[in-house]
């Protein structure tokens, strides 16, 4: 549940999310997480802790991986945001989504959207990360189900499929 304090005035805030323009009316300090879930109906963005520890609410903002529970909506004005809903094109899964499905990277699924976005961010910077680099890059996204072994295998598999190796 949000601990946002109420500001008297709502502001009009516009951003691009998953390639679509969105305009919302929100208090400037409302969390990006709440606005995405409640106003844009992107419920693939999950809340796990509300304090930036678990990474379940990860989204890409201007190409940077952020915890949307820590981002006031004001900061998202004019930003380009990608959530899990923006990865698959029509019914074709993104290579990371397919690899998570094939390699057991998703169990209960609650960390999965954030984890896939963290992996996407990693592969965009480093298309062939080592196991250690993967462990380090995903360490801001907590998973309680997998022990990470199959998540790391999923990311490695996606990297292999993307680079054709």
């Amino acid at each position: 549940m949000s601990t946002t304090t109420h500001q008297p005035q709502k502001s009009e805030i516009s951003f691009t999310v998953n390639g679509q323009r969105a305009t919302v009316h929100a208090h400037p300090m409302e969390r990006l997480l709440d606005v995405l879930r409640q106003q844009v109906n992107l419920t693939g963005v999950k809340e796990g802790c509300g304090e930036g520890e678990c990474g379940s609410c990860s989204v890409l903002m201007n190409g940077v991986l952020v915890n949307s529970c820590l981002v006031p909506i004001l900061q998202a004005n004019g930003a380009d945001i990608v959530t899990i809903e923006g990865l698959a094109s029509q019914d074709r899964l993104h290579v990371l989504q397919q690899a998570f499905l094939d390699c057991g990277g998703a169990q209960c699924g609650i960390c999965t959207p954030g984890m896939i976005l963290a992996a996407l961010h990693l592969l965009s910077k480093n298309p062939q990360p080592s196991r250690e680099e993967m462990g380090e890059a995903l360490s801001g996204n907590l998973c309680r189900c997998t022990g990470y072994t199959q998540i790391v295998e999923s990311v490695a598999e996606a990297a292999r499929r993307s680079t054709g190796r």
Partner: protein
Amino acid sequence: MRNGNIVGRSVPRKEGHDKVTGRALYVDDWTLPNMLYGATVRSTIPRGKIKNITFGCGIDWQQFVIVSAQDIPGKNCVALIGEDQPCLADGVVNHPEEPILLLAHRDRHLLPKAVAAISIEYEPLPAIFSIEESERLSEIIWGEENIFKTCLIEKGDVHRVWEMADHIIEGEYRTGAQEQLYIENNGMIAEFDPRYGITVWGSLQCPYYVHKSLMKLFNLPEDRVRVVQMETGGAFGGKEDYPSMIAGHAALLAIKSGRPVKIIYDRMEDMTATTKRHPSRTRHRTAITHDGQILGGEIQFTIDGGAYQTLSPVVLSRGAIHAGGPYYWPAVRIQAKAVATNVPPHGAFRGFGAPQSIFAMERHMDEIARVLQISPIEIRRRNLLKPGQTTTTGQIVSEETNLDKLLNRALELADYDSQKARFESENARNSKKKGIGIAAFLHGAGFTGSGERYLSSVVGVEVLSDGRLRVLVSSTEFGQGTNTVLCQIVAETLGLAFDDVLIAQPDTNQVPNSGPTVASRTAMVIGRLVQSAAIGIRGTLTSGGFLKEHYSREEFLAACRAYVEKHGPFRSLARYEQPADVVWDEEKYSGAAYAAFAWAVYIAEVTVDLTTYSVSVDDFVALQEIGKVLHPVLATGQITGGVAQGIGFALFEKVVWDQGRMQNGQMTNYIIPTSADLPPIRVYFEEWGNAHGAFGAKGIGELPMDGPAPAVVNAITDAVGVALNSIPATPEDIFDALSLNNQAGVISSTTVNRD
């Protein structure tokens, strides 16, 4: 064992597509029209009488729906094994964070302020917070002597073993509370309609537990309560009993307000108020020969149940039955008890008592080895159960069990001997000490003793109008793979494709009561029943002349369609029957405690940095025998996940208590392993089979929680030469243990040398 076309193969997880695309709907992803949000006002003291409740100024209380214990139409309890836990405290509180009042409002952001504006005046009563304080009986907080349950397992004549012993070795071992820390917090939506009664949708493991509890709370018949499981973001036992409480709360608010109400806990509320793994204390006294043969012993296993009984009696049972490990005890007496304290009730967490008692057993084996100056491997090898021998409850070990072979394979996989020798030679020169540790263990699948007979689970398989089949069970998916494995079993049984079989959303209006999703019972017990129900479908089709004895997939689907066209949709049900060879004496705690045991040997390598006292786990070999591996990727994922939780249990996850309240109820200060903290976990299986499970499967979910903690702590002890007998062993604890050892030369185990 042979793979089938579908069983034994890693087909895509049924609900996997929705999970990787973000489409899967968890309870907080869902809203109903005109819905209010609910919040809970909780006790701030551990024990006392409620004298006065003040609704502070600055809040327009007219806008809030307020519920107290007086609004409960039925019995004020969360009905489970007992009925001692109130749904809302009425006059007295027995632990911090006990629910007292409920609030609802349409703006969820206003609720925290309103909760903070309510002040409750108490007359405090003395409270107790530990097993020892509870045993002292200075305050009686539950029953006549603060005891929820005792049990006694006796085998052979323990009195005689002490005089035959060359050594008598004693030790005391402790484990701390552990938070399940599913990443999805608890949540529930309730709606009341006078025509249909109460409906709740939520994050939960056991729809029919919630159903039973709501019937009692509202004094309603079973057809006026409906419980639906939403996609559930992890549970691990933590959503076994507490969802009944939250469902009650949401439903009370829904009835009073006349509108749907959603309650979603935030992380701190979830961590401080809901259940955790029972803290434990285990005392061993073991009679042993010079060459390391166990003659017999006494084990006292005690767990802290918190303020109400909840699941403690059954956690205690499982812990006690597993306390002797996978070893042959000619004589043993296991005395177990669950005591009351003024902390929030402890509950189910993967392993359910066994990780606690197995930690003690496996640490104790290493202590015995140290005293006898034999290797940790040999002490285990000489005592591992063999076919024809009996467990502590007198259950005969089956023919195919070959624990010596399991041990040898694990040693090979871990390259144990050469690693051990290398660490011993290198440690002298390094401030980073390396060690290797082992744990051998077992885990019983299904409810303990007569539990499955009492549950008498029913499952169904129905034929849909398009010819496909749908599995009807109350068994829930929360990551483990229930949906996938049950559909695999049906498809394999009938020669269909995986996609020909669907599974219904668990909804008590739609599915029969196949019992709770706990106790490593789903693949083995429910899987077998689903197989029977599937065979029933085929029987109906063949006896009705719609299907020949030999058929293709297409012919089967066509027969289904033809049957439905003529007679309408139909279903086949199957009910559990206790196998004739599974006989349990509840009074004497003897006999076949479980229809099957899974067996395992885990080996951990660690580095202890003597500058920072931090521990890294460098390698982890997890070898287990689980009967048929129905789905290799899912099975492997169960093991790696359980091992990670076990490593957290051993090294990181420390609940800091003050006056019975968890002080570190945040992910910032309650630390679980991240991807940077764990090695790749190497998982291996043996498949010896199981006559009672579908295609030979046994239970698997809890097993991997049992072994990692003792394996890791045995490895630390191997590295630094000091016995650590309490977990979690954080760097501070390891520093303390080493300092204490340097000062006084203390060893925790005592030896009586009979020479």
